[in-house]
């Protein structure tokens, strides 16, 4: 079974993002970039399926600027077999990403696509579901457990009330939640080996996809700052303030 994973290059989760002075977006110059953490979980899950003898090949796809190749290399160093890079400088909305991934899936014919449940930059949480809809496939979102059994996949999902398990007809799209697995670090020998693994370049035009945005970002601003930092000396004082000053208990 061929497994396709999509990996997004985002601002590293440890970086404190800053809004640009002209309010057009956030500062990305000289900022550390990494693979979206949920996509690392997707790559790890694909590798575990391969180690279990279920997946036969893992294709890692990234979409965006030239540097996305580094993100693909990370996936290859973890254990993916080859990469596909859809090169574009355009800002891609989730719908455009889903259309591009659909075009890649039409060519590659994977039985399973695994993507992160959301990217930690735009926090949209759309791409996996949109891709499943465009392909006419089933979906298992926010997965904390995936069990492949012949032509179906049982996916345990993290939902607001607890856990839910659905059975999906393959091919399917799975989106990863935090507790699906703990991604491995790439070893140095594997990082060296990954340099020799192939990355096929393509473009939205070659894939025949119009990536024109549907949304216009009018401005990006900092949220209002909280005035915190006050300390109290005792529990009695705390309860008194909550009761008589803040009036919340």
């Amino acid at each position, binding site marked *: 079974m061929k497994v396709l994973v999509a990996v997004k290059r985002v601002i590293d989760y440890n970086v404190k993002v800053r809004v640009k002075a002209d309010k057009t977006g956030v500062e990305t110059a000289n900022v550390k970039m990494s693979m979206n953490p949920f996509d690392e979980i997707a790559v790890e899950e694909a590798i575990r399926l391969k180690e279990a003898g279920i997946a036969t090949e893992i294709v890692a796809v990234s979409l965006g600027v030239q540097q996305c190749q580094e993100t693909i290399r990370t996936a290859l160093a973890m254990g993916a077999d080859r990469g596909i890079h859809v090169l574009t400088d355009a800002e891609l909305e989730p719908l455009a990403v889903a259309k591009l991934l659909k075009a890649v899936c039409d060519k590659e014919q994977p039985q399973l696509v695994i993507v992160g449940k959301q990217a930690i930059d735009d926090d949209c949480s759309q791409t996996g579901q949109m891709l499943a809809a465009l392909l006419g496939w*089933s979906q298992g979102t926010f997965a904390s457990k995936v069990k492949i059994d012949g032509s179906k996949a049982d996916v345990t999902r993290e939902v607001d*009330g607890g856990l839910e398990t659905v059975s999906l007809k393959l091919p399917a799209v799975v989106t990863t939640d935090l507790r699906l697995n703990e991604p491995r670090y790439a070893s140095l020998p594997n990082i060296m080996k990954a340099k020799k693994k192939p990355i096929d370049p393509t473009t939205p035009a070659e894939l025949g996809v119009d990536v024109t945005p549907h949304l216009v970002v009018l401005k990006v601003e900092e949220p209002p700052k909280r005035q915190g930092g006050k300390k109290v000396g005792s529990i009695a004082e705390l309860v008194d303030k909550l009761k008589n000053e803040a009036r919340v208990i």
Partner: protein
Amino acid sequence: MSVLVFAEHSNSALKSATLNAVTAAVAIGGDVHVLVAGFNAKPAAEAAAKVKGVTKVLLVDDAGYEHLLAETVAPLVVKLAPAYSHVLATATTFGKNFMPRVAAVLDVAQISEIQSVVSADTFVRPIYAGNALATVQSKDAIKVITVRGTGFAAADAEGGSAAIETIEAGPSTDLSHFVGAELSKSERPELTSARIVISGGRGMQSGDNFHLLDAIADKLGAAVGASRAAVDAGFVPNDYQVGQTGKIVAPDLYIAVGISGAIQHLAGMKDSKVIVAINKDEEAPIFQVADYGIVGDLFKLIPELSAELDKVKG
């Protein structure tokens, strides 16, 4: 202009997040229709008809909607959507699951987790774990939107008298089926709608120690939450998690116990009205957002808090 709100419900009642979504719909303007899809869902439809601001309820009652799988819900909404300028759902794991499928099939963008309405085509949504707010304008004829509950007050559950129209089910599929659910049972209020939330972090040291928080929660009528660290450590189940990738809460009072305050956690609670932090590390970032911080050992302070609450509430 008319707005369709997809109701989140338990067949017997509406979920509170639906009331927040109705408020967003009213802010957009025009007729507000609520779609109740379910099985034996008449009570939920009747509850929706009473919500202030709702002008019509569409009820589709069918065994196929017992579990509301994304693959079956999305085609129903796609079928109804062309009659509307906006389609709204809650930004919960429920709404997030199927709405992007609706948007993709309609070939429109989804605007995720709006927290305010600027105009009928312009909305504010948080990005980067709420460290930035983006104002976005949609060029699509049908706007597909999920609503972050904490951005909008709950609509009055009483005062409306909308008509209920029964409609036919949408197309069925055999792409997926429901196997089972393990839902947490609790007598306490839901995290996302509780007036008071008390959350524990890694500092709680074990799941057993959460009974300390349970005791406070019972006294205050609060919900109990947790940081990702506490969930990852296995102290409590995933549905306790408050944060960027968990639940977003904005109660009147949020008490963070043994939580350091990573930005991912702050993203889930920083819009709370009053924040209390209890932590032994006085440098913990949680204190920067706390209205009242207290430095000390939680295993000493929480029992003290419990006793003090007995005094003032006694």
